[in-house]
């Protein structure tokens, strides 16, 4: 209770003078991590509107909705799934989200919500796979249907059109992963990791990469850091650009566009990251990929 009183006093002292004039945009950021900061920077880069940022970690225990109402913004920017969940109850102010993988699982049916999902379209990964030489025909995927099932399903559909088959093994716990991996040995030509917290743990990642090493097939990760750890390639999202993308949407809304006219988008730009050392050891040519994007 004392803590709350202090916080309110603190907020009044900090924002009291500004409270007189309403900000255009209130930014609620879930975590204080570099990609989120980058994304907010990108947002501000493309949207000139007045912004005021709150970090969720500073507002523990606060009534977020009331806070937002007192700020009377014209738009809310929610950075990260945690922030989106907090502002979800606000239905009369347009909400733009950022750095959220599966926004539908949080705000399905909310008409005042739009934004840029962190998902990279599976098709883009399939494009990447097809550029690997030799081209993998059977690609192993391990997923927890409850977490990444919707993405895998979409990937499966897209894969068929590209002549790639996905061998999908479903697991319920991380402990199932080693067995799943063992059973994929000799069947698949490559492994495709999906952002799934059941499947991807520090230990399983290691196992993924060890399996790759032992069976000489590449692993395609979903973020740059896995490439550094030993995956062959990944499509890394550009947080700054995603921020810009969302900023543009916000600018449109502030300029009078209806939220309903701006459906949720996916990251428009991705960077291909490759591990040349791994490629060399696995005897894989990256020529086609290099042609796609200049080597970094």
């Amino acid at each position, binding site marked *: 209770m004392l803590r709350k009183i202090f916080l309110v006093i603190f907020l009044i002292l900090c924002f009291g003078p500004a409270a007189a004039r309403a900000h255009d945009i209130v930014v609620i950021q879930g*975590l*204080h*991590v*570099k*990609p989120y900061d980058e994304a907010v920077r990108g947002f501000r880069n493309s949207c000139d509107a007045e912004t005021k940022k709150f970090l969720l*970690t500073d507002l523990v225990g606060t009534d977020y909705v009331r806070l937002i109402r007192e700020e009377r913004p014209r738009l809310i920017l929610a950075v*990260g*799934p*945690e922030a989106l969940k907090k502002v979800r109850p606000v239905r009369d102010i347009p909400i733009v989200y950022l*750095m*959220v*993988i*599966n926004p539908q699982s949080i705000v399905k049916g909310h008409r005042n919500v739009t934004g840029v999902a*962190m998902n990279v379209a599976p098709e883009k990964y399939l494009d990447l796979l097809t550029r690997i030489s030799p081209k993998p025909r059977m690609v192993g995927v391990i997923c927890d249907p409850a*977490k*990444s099932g919707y993405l895998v399903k979409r990937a499966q559909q897209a894969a068929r059109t590209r002549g790639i088959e996905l061998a999908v093994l479903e697991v319920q716990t*991380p*402990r199932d992963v*080693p*067995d799943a991996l063992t059973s994929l040995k000799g069947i698949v030509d490559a492994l495709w990791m999906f*952002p*799934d*917290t059941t499947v*991807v*743990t*520090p*230990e399983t990642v*290691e*196992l993924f990469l*060890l399996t790759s090493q032992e069976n000489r097939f590449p692993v395609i990760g*979903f*973020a740059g*850091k896995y490439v550094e750890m030993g995956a062959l390639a990944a499509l890394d*999202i550009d947080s700054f650009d995603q921020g810009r993308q969302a900023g543009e949407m916000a600018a449109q809304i502030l300029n009078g566009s209806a939220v309903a006219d701006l459906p949720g988008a996916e990251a428009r730009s991705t960077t291909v990251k490759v591990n040349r050392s791994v490629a060399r050891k696995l005897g894989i040519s990256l020529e086609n990929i290099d042609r796609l994007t200049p080597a970094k």
Partner: protein
Amino acid sequence: MTPMPIINPFRSVRQSFRTRVFALLTLLILVTTIAFTTFYVLHESSAATERLVTEGNFLAGLLAYNSRLAVFAENQEMLRETTDGTLFHQHVSSAGIFTSEGKPLIERNRQLKGGAVRESEGFSETLHTIIPRLKAERKPVYYEKADRLEFIAPIIISQHSGSPESLYFDDSTREKGEQFVGVARIVLDKTGLTATLHRLLLTSIIMGAMVLMIGAYLMYLVTLGLTRPLSNLMAGVKALDEGKLSARIPVESDDELGEVSHAFNTMAQSLEKREAENRCLEELLRRAEKLEAKEEWECTFDTVPDLVAVLDHDHRIVRINKAMADRLGIAKEDAVGTRVYEYLHGTEAPPDHAGISALLAGGATYFEEIYQQQQSYFMVTISPLVRTAGIIGSVYVARDITKRKQAEELLQKAEERFRLIAETIVEVIWMTDVEVTKILYISPAYEQVWGRSLESLYEDPRSFIDAVHPDDRELLSAALASQATGEQYELEYRIIRPNGSIRYIWDRGYPVRDKTGQVTCYTGVAEDITEHKLAEEEKRAIQAKLVQTNKMTSLGLMVSGLAHEVNNPNNSIKLTAHLLARSWQDILPVLEQHCREDGDFSIGGQSFSQMKEILPQHIAGIRANSRRIEGIIKNLRDFVRKGASNVNFKAEINTIVSIAASIINAQIKQYTRHFQLKLDEGVPVVRGNPQQLEQVVINLIMNALQALPDREHTVLVATSFDAAEGLVVIKVVDEGGGIPPDVKERICEPFFSTKLDHGGTGLGLAISNFIIKEHKGSLEFESKPGKGTTALVKLPVWNQ
């Protein structure tokens, strides 16, 4: 047999300063070496152990980290590969992976490759106890056992609990979940370590021993150098002690020890010089003493106040001293060659020279007391004069003892006078030691007073106590006890002479003290005061009688007045009561008639019917009491009047008793049915007043009757004659309650009565006693409470 001295070989070593210094320094080196070696060995062994522990911790941590995936996947192949990798390490004897419950997932042994589970028995229990610590500290722990070291490291895997977004980047702000899935165990063999430590210990001991030996040798050299000057000094002092004053010691250096050596040499030189001087002085002194001794002897010889002469073998004078020369009035030189007796002994004939010579030859001294013609006494001693060659003559000494002689004579005369006094006077003069264990002197009067011989007392000094009356012995013992405290005392006691007669003694004792105030003995006088005592008692009896007589005279005067004053009103009362009785008899019929006619009425607050019963009784009471007053007055008159009675009549006792019994016959019958008279026929007449004696007998019989409890008890009156004493006896015996002792003492006192409530006046026995005393007889009572009383009247017979 003197005991052999026990030679202790270590004693000389202990007493040697050099050895002590050497031993001390060597000990110091030994202690230092041991300390350093111990410190080195301990430090090295702890460092080696620490290295092994660090290695073990590292290996266990590494194994735990490397096996995370294998444990996570529970992949035996991976587990074996990871574990076997550890066994390549030199000291590792065993490596294993266990689940968090202590179940072995794999255990590999250097000797027993193939996964024998040998050392992990009981490990699950051990693990159970340390899991909390492993979880908390997240680092390996280790156990040391006899032959090995065990390291246990926790295997921890992390878990994602966040959103899938976090998989894209490292989220340092979010707490990662961690799971404790098992432990890695490494066993390091301590055999190698032990061997290393043994080698280290051996090397250190060898090194230490070498250092000690070298150090000891060096210390020996140092000690030798330090103590040489001291040894020299010691040798010098010893030589000096043995008297070699010429001894000197070499001065080897200029330091403190050198200075000491130099000082010693100087001292020895001084001593040598002084010794020579002393010898010279002693020689001079000896010579001077010889001359002085001669002079001194002559001076002493002349100073002696006794008359001294040195005689030769033939008793001729060789030399006389000044005292003798002066006394004899001759020059010293003139006396030489003469004989002493010619001047001193005043005898014509010479003494027995041959006898004296024989005595002196035996080494004895001759004594003789001589009386000179000039009224002087001398004590002469002649002693043999002995030199180394034998007896060369004699020394004649004559001491003037005239004054002592005169004093002795005076003393003898004084003693004679004292003896005369002591033996003449009738008082017993005595002198004893303090404890009365010895009689120092007792005057002959003792034999007269005690009736015992002086010899018996000298033999047994305490025998005089035996004669003392038993009742007074305690008194005497107390007095004798006070002698021990040095107190003066005087006391009176009785003694019983051998013939049974009792004498009163007045004894006084005085302490005799010496100059220091100490009591040395006791002296005193014991006087026979029997005559004086008896006279005093008689005087006291006469005085008592005078008092009694005086008392009676006063009583008589009072009674005659009282009798007159009381008798007149009493007569009036008696007559009035008589009149009243007669009047009542006359009034009564009138009053009865009145009562019958007019009913009962009140007289004096009571009804007539009651009063006619009570009033005659009251009138009878007045008459009875009036008669009683009359009787008392009569008795009093008789008592007072008796002084004037004449007792010079012939009285026949049997007649008197018979008359008395007949007078009170009515009372006798009232009190008893068993009254007896036993009158002895041969009773002679006595001198007396028959009426008075009758009164006495009546009194006694009445008393006896009144003592009886009922009429069934007896009263006996008997008369008899005691020819031996010349007394006639009247005996009145009753079977009453007897007389208590306290009452018996006062029974004859006037106005003393136990029957005052029943009409007694307390005068009956007082009068009787007085009458009997007037008749020069005696009235005695023998009584025991409960057994009755006997009254005895003894009267002397008629004697012309």
